[in-house]
């Protein structure tokens, strides 16, 4: 497999403003808090908002392809600044499409931008309920998932 290109993390200028709004930031760049919107904003950090929007787009399987010549404003210069120690590649491998892995940063941006456009126009801090579609009312996991410890014992006997 060839080396995957890793882009910066960002959004359209409107998208960046929206993410700033979700985290109670003013429209100006930087971390400046907007006293008007911050008290009711649903997120503390832009990273929390960005991650939630990315997962929304990814699980829905919807990317908003970058238009030719369209430029994105950078939010994080490096994808690791968004993912921290989490392995976002496996998320894209599992829930995304094969081409997502060609440029992970681009894929993350496009999933997120779809989510931004999806909720931006109807957004209100009082009705924000991204969680509602993701409630899990199935049986508890212990009844269904395989015994991870058992896996490890068998696997370790290979060597």
């Amino acid at each position, binding site marked *: 497999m060839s080396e995957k290109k890793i882009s910066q993390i960002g959004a359209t200028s409107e998208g960046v403003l929206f993410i700033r709004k979700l985290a109670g930031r003013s429209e100006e760049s930087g971390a400046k808090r907007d006293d008007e919107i911050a008290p009711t904003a649903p997120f503390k950090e832009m990273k929390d908002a960005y991650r939630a929007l990315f997962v929304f787009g990814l699980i829905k399987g919807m990317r908003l392809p970058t238009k030719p010549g369209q430029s994105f404003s950078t939010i994080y210069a490096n994808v690791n600044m968004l993912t921290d120690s989490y392995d976002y590649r496996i998320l894209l491998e599992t829930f995304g499409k094969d081409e997502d892995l060609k440029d992970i940063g681009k894929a993350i941006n496009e999933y997120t931008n779809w989510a931004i456009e999806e909720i931006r126009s109807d957004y209100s801090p009082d009705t924000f309920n991204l969680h509602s579609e993701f*409630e899990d009312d199935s049986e508890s996991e212990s009844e269904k998932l395989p015994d991870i410890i058992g896996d490890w014992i068998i696997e370790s006997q290979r060597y």
Partner: protein
Amino acid sequence: MELRYVELYNWTSYWNAPLGEENSTAHCFDFNCQSGNKGYAIFGENSRGKSSFTDAIQWLLFGKAWTKPVSTDGGRTQKKTLRPLVGNPKDQSFPLLNTTAFLEGNFNFFVKAIFKMNDDIYQLSRIAGPVEEGLVVEDDDDMEVSLHVKNASSGEEWGGSEAQDFIGSEILPEKLSRFFFIDGESVTEYRALIASKDENVELRSNIEDILNFPVLKKGISDFKSLKEDIMSEFSSNTKSTKKNKKLLEQIKDIEGDIKRTKKSQEANQKRLKKTKDDIKDLEAIMSNFGNAEKNIIERDKEQIRLEDKNSRLAELYEDRRGDNQDLWLFMLQKSIKNQISELLPELEQRLKLVELQRTKSTRLKHLENLSNDENLPCETCNQLPSPRDKKQIKKDNDEIDEIKSNLIEIETSLDENNVLEKKQRLEKFRAFIKADFSKQQKKIDKQKGLLEEIEGKVSDYQSAIDNIDEDEVAGVREKIKKLRVVEADCRAKERRDSKNLEEFVSEKSAKNRQVIEAGGTALLDKLEKKIKLVEWFEKIWVESLDRFSQESRENVESTASEVFKQLTNNPEGFSRIVLNENFGLTVLDANDLPVQNPTPGMMQVAAISLIDALGLMSNIEFPILFDTPGQSIDQGHRDKIIEHYWSERSTQFIIIPSSGEFRADEVESRYQKLIARTWELDFDNKENKTTVKNRVIN
């Protein structure tokens, strides 16, 4: 005096529709009758509005209606409270306005009655309604009550306090009403007279009122005052002996003190009057503001609530922001779980391969060991292997090659599809998310709902006071508050001055007596005779009062005894009723000895006899309304009470028996010749209202 007609509109359980609509006709009790009989009865099951009828007449006359007496000390005493004009049924405050009407937004109610007195017909009405037409009434502050009395014969009319004074002086004084509105439950008060000397001070005062004692008692104090005046005159004219000179100087000093105290009293009274006037003026200003002050207070209260709820909402938003740090992980959980479940078959397949790999590796190791050393025992069973021939050795070597080849295939397959690694990578996203996002959202929604509700209230209160200068209202209230302090000071000073004055007058009186004892002239002799004469009159007055009290008591005793003997089932067993100076009541048996351990029934009958006797002594002709007349007594006594009142009394007598005391048809057939009218009250559960049905009309 005769009660001719009573109308109730939206009075307690007597529901009516708004005036002009169907069912808006007031509920009527027509007391007119051709027979001239005086017996009336209102029958009905419990909670049908029977007692409300008595309450209605009392409210019409005195503007007050009370809750049923409730004992908070195990029955020793009973307390009752004033009923509000309006109230929501859920508050259980026993309001006077029908609660269905209240909920329907009809806040008008009234009681009207027609009385005949000395050939004149009097129309009385007490009407309650909102202070402003169309106002949605919340409590009594939003209501006003008006009283109106009209002499239909002469056309004279009275309203407000004049009408109230007319009722008190011409119809029935409020303090004597207890002798005409008799309640089986309140008869307990009279029974307390039999048991104790200390209780029911108010009741004893009412009994003295009905016997005109207060007027006579005032006469005694008037004589004392007159004597003091003459003694003062005497002192000022007494001859100047050395001793008298000294005494007169002292009297002069005391008079100075009295003068100063009186001056101080006058000044204080002026100050008190001015303060009271000022308060009255300010209260009038406050009343011009209507409910503004209340609305300001309520608005401020709601604003504090609003701030509190806003700060709680801010906390909830802050919590949400904290929770939403994990929102992305939460959103992944369901998909990750499903994904891992989907990996299960592959995982099982892989485990099988791993197991196969292990088995083949063991076999390979065994065969390779055999090749190295034929005498190596088996690793599993520890037995020496059977000796191998060449053929067997070749076969084993072939198997070794095959196993090696298989193991390479298995290894490749395991390396190419590492489902376990994938599962483990996905597992790293598995997390227990403590936050309950739905609950959090519901909390926010609920809090916002509460906020909207409170904001609505604040806005309502604010719009009600938009045209009010709040500073002015607060200023007026502050002034009233300060004046109340002044008023309290004045009253305290008044008490101090009165006490001082009393002491000075008493001291002066003692000195005057010393002066008189020191000798006199012709003028002084005359004054001394005057004093003696006044003292003589005073003595006669006191003796007369004692005699009058004694005679009054004897009259009450005699009448009460007579009634008691008529009412009791065992007239031969009792001699009479006696009253002590505090109107403590004792029943004497046939041997003139006090009855030991009287039964509740006997005490009830004795109490009713006393009430009846006092009513007769009052010389007031007013219908007697007896609610639950049969309480605590047996059927025999009940029948005697009815017979006594309906046949022996010249006034109308209305009984309102509780269900179980009397059966309507039995009473009507037995006392057909004594009955004027009877009614039956029913309660329409569907419409939640009392209905009045005429039964007997004689």
